[in-house]
């Protein structure tokens, strides 16, 4: 021990300083290694960040596409004067759409009287709406859930169908026609 102390003293000043620097760097690495093991999520966190970055990039791309669409009714079928969506645009608009306005809901309710009743009783309240792209069928599906007490019975009804037309407001897109028949 005494010998090693003496040999350390005999070292030149720059070598001592370099040794100290290396020591501090190792200490910093060790500290971060320990902290990362205790608090960090490592690869899992990086994976989450990548997914979030991809989601944001996808959303920006969709928003850019939405703003490039003409304002008005967009349809996925022939036989109208409205803007006809290509297959690619139909999928993109479906994925970007979140809202379902009242008239689309009222239209879908024509073929579902019980849903209409609950919707009316509840003062046009909707529990949940959804717009989903089905990769297998290559179609856009949209719908809504109504629930409430109808003549003493608690009911929850899900109405869904193919979303065949959309309304582009220039800021967002909305499902305009749900074909549930």
């Amino acid at each position, binding site marked *: 021990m005494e010998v090693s102390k003496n040999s350390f003293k005999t070292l030149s000043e720059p070598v001592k300083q370099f040794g100290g620097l290396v020591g501090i760097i190792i200490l910093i690495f060790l500290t971060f290694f320990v902290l990362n093991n205790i608090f960090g999520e490592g690869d899992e966190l990086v994976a989450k960040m990548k997914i979030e970055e991809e989601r944001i990039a996808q959303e920006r791309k969709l928003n850019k596409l939405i703003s490039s669409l003409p304002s008005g*009714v967009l*349809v996925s*079928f022939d*036989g*109208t004067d409205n803007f006809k969506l290509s297959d690619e645009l139909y999928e993109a608009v479906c994925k970007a759409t979140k809202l379902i*306005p*009242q*008239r*689309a809901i009222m*239209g879908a309710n*024509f*073929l*579902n*009287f019980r849903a*209409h009743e609950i919707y009316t009783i509840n003062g046009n309240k909707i529990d949940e709406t959804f717009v989903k792209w089905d990769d297998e069928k290559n179609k856009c599906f949209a719908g809504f859930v109504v629930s409430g007490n109808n003549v003493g019975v608690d009911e929850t009804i899900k109405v869904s169908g193919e979303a*065949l*037309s959309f*309304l582009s407001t220039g800021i967002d897109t909305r499902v*305009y*026609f749900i*074909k549930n*028949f």
Partner: protein
Amino acid sequence: MKKLIFFILFSSLITSLASARSTGCKEGNCDNGYGKWVYTDKTTYEGEWVATKKHGQGTETWPNGYIYKGQFKESQWNGIGILFFPDGSTYEGEWANGFMNGEGTFTWSDGKQKKGIWKNGSFQE
């Protein structure tokens, strides 16, 4: 700051006035007679009115493409009428309380048909 508040209030006033001017009874007599009413969501009704209610023959056009042509009673689709769905499908027949009720024919946009008795929008097998 004052200018900004004034601008916002002024814009709101103009928007409200413009909106009010574009809705309501736009043509004819919407109390008793024949008139055209435009709703705030751009739905329109053109037809006969009795005591400020849609009553008689008329056409209601929804902004999302549904069009009903036929008889109304107390503002509801009631009697004989035809509903055009946005994709070209149609229902022609009897209506009661705003729903397909009675004898009618549903025709899909591809030409397929279902004819028979309907109750509250459902086909009775």
